[in-house]
């Protein structure tokens, strides 16, 4: 068992999941915020486009989205997200395509989390903003969004945890990470499958539980008292 563990870089594999999580979280957060603002904006076309995006993306399996990024964008359309001449072209390109797929998918859920955050802001806040003459842009930027972010910490935290777990699906793009390392180990030593599973599962518990505790703590600390 010890020999088996020694010959596979489990920690390194988990590090790939963490890197996938952080990059995707960054892009998904930006895109999700734009979508959320679109969905509450006064312009019907923007509201419609935001809703169409969310309803489409969140009804497609993530596996399909990652496959579309890897087999479709790269394989069929020749979109490359890394330089050909870089040493590890395939690994870098797969990683970035997986980040793209994860971000596109997660943005829909970030948008919904933020919208639930906007719902926690009392109507009086927006009315007061309008009463002092702020327009939609200024109302969102100065009054609504700062409170909405703070009210949305709990659902955003859940989305982050879900994203972290979903990084295993990067397997579909051929990114070597915890799921693929576990699979390789099990194929090599099927008799030790249970032990291997428990070790990898504990790794996930070690990532997910603290994240949950921290976001719950933050949502209590930073949430606007009403």
């Amino acid at each position, binding site marked *: 068992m010890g020999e088996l563990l020694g010959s596979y870089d489990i920690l390194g594999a988990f590090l790939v999941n963490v890197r996938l999580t952080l990059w995707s979280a960054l892009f998904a957060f930006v895109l999700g915020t734009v979508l959320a603002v679109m969905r*509450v904006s*006064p*312009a019907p*076309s*923007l509201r419609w*486009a935001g809703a169409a995006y969310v*309803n*489409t993306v*969140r*009804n*497609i*399996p*993530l*596996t*399909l989205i990652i*496959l*579309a990024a890897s*087999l*479709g964008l790269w*394989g*069929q*359309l*020749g979109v490359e997200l890394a330089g050909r001449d870089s040493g590890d072209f395939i690994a870098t390109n797969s990683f970035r395509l997986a980040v793209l797929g994860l971000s596109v*998918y*997660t943005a829909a*859920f970030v948008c*919904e989390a933020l919208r639930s955050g*906007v*719902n926690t802001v009392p109507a009086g806040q927006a*009315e007061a903003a*309008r009463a002092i003459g702020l*327009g939609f842009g200024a*109302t*969102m930027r100065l009054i*609504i969004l700062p409170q909405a972010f703070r009210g949305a910490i709990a659902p955003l935290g*859940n*989305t982050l*945890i*879900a*994203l972290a*777990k*979903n990084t*295993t*699906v990067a397997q*579909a793009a051929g990114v070597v990470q*915890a*799921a693929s390392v*576990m*699979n390789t180990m*099990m194929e090599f030593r*099927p008799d030790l*499958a*249970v032990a291997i*599973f428990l070790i990898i*599962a504990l790794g*996930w*518990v070690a990532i*997910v*539980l603290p994240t*949950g505790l921290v976001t719950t703590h933050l949502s209590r600390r930073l949430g606007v008292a009403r």
Partner: protein
Amino acid sequence: MSSVIFDAPGPRGRRRIMAVNVVGVLVVLGVLAWVVWGLARQGQLTATKWEPFATASAWENYLLPGLVATLKAAAIAIVTANVFGLLFGLGRLSEHAALRWVSGAVVEFFRAVPVLIMMLFFYNVFAFSGAVGDPAFYGVVVALTLYNGSVIAELVRSGVHNLPRGQREAGLAIGLTPAASLRLVELPQALIAMMPSMISQLVVILKDTGLGYLINYAELLRQARLLGSSNANLLPALIVAAVLFIAINYTLTTVAERVARRLDNRVAGGATIQEPSIEMETPMPRSRT
């Protein structure tokens, strides 16, 4: 539509919104045109790429069997997940500390481990031991059961907790034991309140059967990929699969919303709809609208 975030627009505001609308429509059309142009330039929009989907063999040999496999795994998983969820949800509400603790640990564990990890594990175990005929199918079903069952267990718990305190107090006041009050008064209402969330959970299960692709379960995605490789039209095949998934899931979401509205006045706490999220870490009933 009225919103508190912005005023009912005046003449100048309406002109500005009109301008944004025009720009917005142009941008959306522009993006679509860019995608279509890109696909056309790569020869993805030729008739030979799309004609196979008009043939009976594509549907009979690939897409329909895939769809059936997807629906079969999802249907079985939703039943077993509900049984699992009910058992462990009640376990977490139990009077016995030990039972509560064990149920809690099981539920938290299976919610923290990614579904794909469980699927790969069960697939490997089943394939190695040869205990079941179709390791990929059972791998998908068992993994989906454990994960979604844990989510449903949390739904049961939050469903009971969301009921007004008076329901339980009234049960105890007429001489029911706590267990009888749970069984006769609280649980029936909690189950009705949970109904919309459970239907939403169907969307999650259906989407997650797509993970079966990675353990070679012949579900819709795997079949679409096969069809795409045999006709050299991978991208169109993925698009068709996506449209099928969207159609089914969108229907389920709409049904969930309808059910939530109809059941709303049948329980003391009100029925709550839950957005089909990537997963439901803490089932959080959304504010009713």
